[in-house]
């Protein structure tokens, strides 16, 4: 296989990691809304935790995206 083609295919495969981030972020916000609708009084106090969870879930997917950036432009 051409090295250039392998690089592009590898970058594409690495970007699949964002699917996991999508599932995680959706799960976090979905669960937050569910909890917030059941107990709106407690919703405000948990907003900080919501964004921390969002950031952590997103970071794992972004590591995969970073690999594809490195493959495309760094190597």
């Amino acid at each position, binding site marked *: 296989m051409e090295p250039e083609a392998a690089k592009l295919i590898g970058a594409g495969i690495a970007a699949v990691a964002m699917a996991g981030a999508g599932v995680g972020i959706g799960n976090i916000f979905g669960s937050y809304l569910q909890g917030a609708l059941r107990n709106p009084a407690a919703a405000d106090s948990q907003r900080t935790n919501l964004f921390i969870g969002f950031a952590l879930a997103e970071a794992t997917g972004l590591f995969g*995206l970073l690999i594809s950036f490195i493959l495309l432009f760094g190597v």
Partner: protein
Amino acid sequence: MASTTSQGSEGGLALDPMHQFEISRIIPIKFGGIDASFTNSSLWMVLTVVAVSALLLLGTKRIVPSRLQSVGEMIYEFISNMVRDTMGDEGRKFFPFILTLFCFILGANMLGLFALPVLLHPFTVTSHIIVTFALAGLVWVGATVFGFYKHGLGYLKLFAPSGTPPVMLPLLVPIEIISYLSRPVSLSVRLFANMMAGHTMLKVFATFVVALGWAGVIPLAVMVGFTGLEVLIAFLQAFVFAILSCMYINDALHPSH
């Protein structure tokens, strides 16, 4: 909007969404063997500091705030509440640092979106990993040094959460250490990848607007929506960076969690 004009300045419809991230020297400075040139990245950093300072300093004299002043007061109050919620009263002395960090990142993210298309080529400072890694490294090294200064070797209790069964410790301590070491990486990569991916996406879609001619009105409408989304992401990422910095400094303040 900025991306369409930069597309035009390249001429033609060549899809080169990475052109916007190029660094060019404005004033070349050689400092020994080190290239310390004043680049377009430095220029946008200076512009960010000027814009943020102007927002927070101008017109803060009135008792009944003007519109500009109330924006500045909202930012101050927002960060003030966040610092109090995450770090408690002990964390008050870190408030200026967190406010500066938040304002700088927010300003850099926003100015990358609302550039002056004719005068200056738009450039986002935070879309380069070296900038975000320097910011995240500053927070991480600062929090670690402060933790050891305040608690001495007691800071190492951070790696062994209280209430852990001793059998679990050989498994848990390496995990905690790895998670601690990956903090600056995840903090910087999150901001960098969000900014870079977002701006590349805007530019790729902007190419469709030009390529479709009159039918490009439809993707243009979508572009407006996406620009709004990017504004939201610019704010959210600055907020997430600030709140995670608060969490890390909070770990240095109270290591036994």
